[in-house]
């Protein structure tokens, strides 16, 4: 036990002069408490490593002006998008800058896929964007079929489109729920999950799995539609419009929701294109780009649908865009069921396929945007390079452009309206 000399007086920090305190801290090896304006903030502020800034932007973000503060949001936070960390530089309640720190869910899927056969790759990509699993599998299936030089049978393409649209419906429904949840409303997420559970039980009847459906194969799909799937589909179809409208009625006219989303996070079409934002976010800013119309894949050139756009570019438009897309998807499902042909559901493909050397690019419209796969084959059983372009990853770049000047509480609302899924962001 150290003995403290009672004659020693430990000075109260308040009594110290500012310079004296800084001198003591520097002697102790700590960074000064109050940085000069514009000085690099360092470790004590927010847990960033105690090292010089590596890039210009890092220096801009982590240098504090007068009255500014760095606040960490995440990686664990009540907003349910997954593990993302936002380092937010605030002055009071107003955001000055945002730096998203990603990689908390990076699983190395691209590298793992280089050691897997083409069919196994289709299972590895499931947990990327885990809310739109069918789209995750659709894009590599298209790319691999191009590499191998085959086409899936028509019935398989129709089943693919059917499950893909079902996936889009529940993914958009979940976005509505998460958007309300991030603003504090707990009921819509429950409704969204009821909707999701219905659809997911239906999809588990056809694919065997509730969430990471291992359903697509190179050359078709794995299973044909069965009685349980069709009966659930019919029951669900009878109820879904009313359910969606009930859920929508909870939120759309809600005064709190409207005041928190209208004119929030307004993204112009030009900015959106430059930032690489695609999908409903881009269409809500007025740009009529839909991969299903621009580069029709599967059987989308046989289905009739219009590209929906909204004129605002704010969170409310993105929300309305997704509701409209749900209704569009239901309309598409009706057409698909009407036109479903008979036939096989999988092409005759060997167990381990060895496509000729080449490159292929397959793009689909996922609920978050343009989801594409660039695959290079070297003639062996494994792809030489398997690269996925995830839309949520690129859409996140809009956040540092949109948020400065807004309040901290709007961050989550705006981010939820972009609907990122961290599995896709971090691969």
């Amino acid at each position, binding site marked *: 036990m150290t003995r403290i000399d009672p004659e020693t007086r430990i000075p109260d920090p308040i009594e110290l002069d500012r310079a004296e305190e800084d001198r003591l801290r520097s002697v102790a090896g700590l960074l000064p408490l109050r940085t000069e304006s514009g000085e690099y903030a360092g470790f004590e502020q927010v847990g960033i490593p105690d090292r010089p800034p590596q890039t210009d932007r890092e220096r801009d973000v982590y240098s504090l002006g007068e009255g500014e503060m760095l606040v960490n949001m995440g990686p*664990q936070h*009540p907003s*349910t998008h997954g593990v993302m960390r936002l380092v937010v530089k605030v002055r009071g309640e107003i955001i000055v800058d945002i730096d998203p720190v990603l990689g908390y*869910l990076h699983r190395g*899927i691209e590298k*793992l896929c280089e050691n897997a056969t083409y069919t196994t790759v289709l299972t590895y990509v499931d*947990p990327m964007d*885990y809310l739109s699993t069918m789209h995750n599998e659709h894009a590599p299936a298209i790319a691999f079929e191009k590499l191998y030089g085959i086409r899936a049978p028509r019935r398989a393409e129709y089943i693919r489109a059917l499950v893909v649209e079902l996936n889009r419906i529940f993914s958009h429904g979940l976005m509505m729920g998460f958007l309300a949840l991030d603003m504090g409303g707990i009921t819509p997420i429950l409704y969204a*999950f009821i909707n999701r559970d219905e659809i997911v039980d239906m999809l588990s009847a056809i694919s065997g799995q509730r969430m*990471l459906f291992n359903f697509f194969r190179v050359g078709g799909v794995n299973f044909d539609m069965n009685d349980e799937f069709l009966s659930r589909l019919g029951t669900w179809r009878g109820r879904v419009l009313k359910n969606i409208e009930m859920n929508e009625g909870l939120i759309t006219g809600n005064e709190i929701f409207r005041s928190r989303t209208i004119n929030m996070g307004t993204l112009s079409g030009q900015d959106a294109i430059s930032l690489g934002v695609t999908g409903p976010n881009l269409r809500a800013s007025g740009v009529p780009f839909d991969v299903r119309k621009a580069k029709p894949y599967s059987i989308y050139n046989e289905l009739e649908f219009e590209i929906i756009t909204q004129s605002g570019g704010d969170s409310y438009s993105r929300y309305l865009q997704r509701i409209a897309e749900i209704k569009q998807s239901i309309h598409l499902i009706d057409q698909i069921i009407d036109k479903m042909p008979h036939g096989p559901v999988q092409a005759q493909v060997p167990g381990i396929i060895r496509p000729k050397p080449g490159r292929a690019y397959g793009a689909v419209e996922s609920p978050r945007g343009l989801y594409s796969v660039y695959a290079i084959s070297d003639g062996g059983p494994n792809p030489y390079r398997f690269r996925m372009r995830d839309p949520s990853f690129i859409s996140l770049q809009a956040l540092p452009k949109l948020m400065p000047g807004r309040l901290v509480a709007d961050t989550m609302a705006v981010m939820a309206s972009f609907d990122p899924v961290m599995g896709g962001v971090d691969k």
Partner: protein
Amino acid sequence: MAIDRSAGSSPIVIPDQAREDGLLREFGMEEHPQGGFHGLLEVIPTKADYILDLIRANSLWPLLSGLSCCAIEMMSTATSVNDIDRFGMFPFRASPRQADVLIVAGTLTTKMAGPLVRLWEQMPEPKWCVAMGTCTTSGGRFKRSYSVVQGVDRVMPVDVYVPGCPPRPEGLIYGMMKLHELVKQRRGQWATYVDRGPQRTRWEGDVR
């Protein structure tokens, strides 16, 4: 702080001045490495602790630590169709200080391991950990990945493993039932500090 568990030493430190007065004396805990009362005195705490364990089991509050796909199934367990509110687990607390159970749902990567361990350490005792999904049990489908921790039990002690990719909500509820058994089996051992051993194994990215 090291508590000496060898036989013959008491886990409770009595200050020197207190030994003189007869009011405070040791309870002879050296015979019980896990602590707890002894003999007839055990009757009363046993009954009350049984009820206390029941109360704890039926209102385990999970921490929102959904990392990945299993988080969606955890949320699906928490919402209306598979309602985990009937077991008392509705409030998914955002703050670790208020949570009992850490349901690690989703792949744990090396970058996230540090924050997750910090969350675990911030949770006050009694706390339990449920490893949901195969990614947290053993690395799962990312077995040979360069950035996935091969099982969350490499960094924190786990009480219940729920396999599945993702486990069905019914599976997670079954895991919660097993956790209830575990909690109710404690049977009064919370009366004193229970040495659970090292709280985690040390890992290379550890900052301490």
